[in-house]
């Protein structure tokens, strides 16, 4: 009980410290998410049009995903150095998998008869993609987006390991100075951030599902 009290006290005593960390965390995650979304969806779309390399790309991304995040961060230090920029690179590498995979699968899963219909009526490839495939694949893509966002927010907590900002600073500080209340304080905020974001995205996902598929359940 005193432990929890300690954590709460910490929030009150150092609210400006935590506020700064929260803002840093949000900014870092946001930038990473932006890059991931643009790069990931582009690659995802590209490999639906170039099936020959689709397997290769997905295997590579899968492989990266299995590398423990701390290991990846550690390796990146030697290449990209320390700090926020390095952290964003790591977050982007990790976040690509769910987006690429869901974009690829989402587009491929569009009923091939619908695709045949669209082509048979004289759609160009671009029209097929933008007017038919992407809208129908949207629920799947958004589900992947949601996974990616939560994962990025959580992973950003480790980013301070390589000198980046964000709530990880509190977590890491707590670990390296034998200050568990600090660790928990930082972790709780990360979790809170993740939960709030997840819930909001869940609402968005439901709305999109309803519009495209007519039902809120997958």
């Amino acid at each position: 009980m005193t432990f929890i009290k300690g954590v709460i006290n910490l929030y009150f005593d150092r609210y400006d410290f935590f506020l700064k960390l929260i803002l840093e965390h949000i900014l870092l995650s946001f930038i990473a998410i932006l890059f991931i979304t643009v790069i990931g969806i582009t690659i995802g779309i590209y490999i639906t049009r170039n099936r020959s390399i689709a397997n290769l790309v997905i295997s590579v991304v899968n492989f990266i995903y299995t590398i423990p995040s701390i290991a990846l961060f550690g390796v990146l230090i030697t290449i990209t150095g320390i700090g926020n920029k390095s952290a964003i690179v790591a977050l982007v590498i990790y976040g690509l998998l769910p987006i690429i995979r869901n974009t690829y699968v989402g587009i491929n899963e569009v009923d091939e008869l619908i695709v045949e219909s669209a082509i048979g009526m004289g759609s160009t490839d671009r029209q097929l993609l933008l007017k038919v495939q992407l809208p129908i694949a949207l629920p799947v893509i958004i589900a992947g987006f949601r996974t990616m966002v939560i994962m990025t927010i959580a992973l950003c907590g480790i980013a301070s390991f390589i000198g980046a900002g964000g709530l990880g600073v509190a977590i890491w500080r707590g670990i390296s100075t034998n200050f568990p209340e600090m660790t928990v304080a930082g972790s709780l905020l990360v979790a809170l951030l993740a939960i709030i974001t997840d819930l909001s995205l869940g609402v968005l996902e439901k709305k999109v599902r309803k519009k495209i598929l007519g039902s809120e359940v997958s």
Partner: protein
Amino acid sequence: MEIIRFEEVEKYYDTDKPVIRNLNLTIKQGEFVTLIGPSGCGKTTLLKLINGLIKADKGKIYVQNKEINQWDPIELRRNIGYVIQQIGLFPHLTVADNISYVLDIKNENKDSRLKKAEELISLVGLDESYLHRYPRELSGGQKQRIGVARALAADPEIILMDEPFGAVDEISRKTLQDELLRIFSELNKTIVFVTHDIEEAIKLGTKVILMNKGHIEQAGTKEEMIFEPRNSFVKDFFGTKNFMAYLNVVNIKKVCSMVYSKEEIEDVSKLPALNESAAIMEGIKCLFDYGLDSIAIKDDKNRIVGKFSLKNLKQGIETQRNPDFR
């Protein structure tokens, strides 16, 4: 005027298994062509060769007098209506947007598209209120009508239909067939219609094409296919094996016997009459309803054209069994 022509067309899927071989075909403008044949005969492939979804390996195909390789495939498809069995309506678009899709990809504005959709939805016999609904809210039969409407949006000269009514229940199918005939008579389109249902093929087609193993066995009017089969395959296909089709579709005029003498005409005029355009089946029903041996056949002006009895029917079948092959 010729609108589609196939010259020595061949298509292979594996190197020695031809799906289409030595195919020659001419379709004139304004024809309603039904393509029928056993599974794997190549009828769907032939259809898809017309709008370029499939490319021929050998031979030439002409659409609207232009060789198909000279066509920009996108332009070609936008000028040909295409309806498939599972319809393939876009679930994320309203009925209105579905119908006017071709116009959208041609960059027409929203208002003119909506107008066209309104026009077409009443043409296919559905209420305007459906325009704002989504495909998932429609029944099978309704979806098919929308599919047809969608194919008509760009006012194409040619419409390709691949077993469009196959997935619909019988009652709806009959209604849809009648609707399609009505639309066909109102507009001046050329329709190429693939089906596996003989009755449907005979009922709808002004020209019926029977395919087998990748080539055309015979192409002609329904009467030619039934009464003048070119070989035993055609005969078996349309002949007594498909007796019901024959009875339901062929006009009673074909099998009634002529009456010439005044006395005969007088006798016949006492009998209950049936219009010459009725199907043989109706005649049979009439015979049984009235408990008579024969009934009279009259034309639209109420003049006697002939007499129908079961004897006529037997004679007609006999002719079928021993046709003169041409």
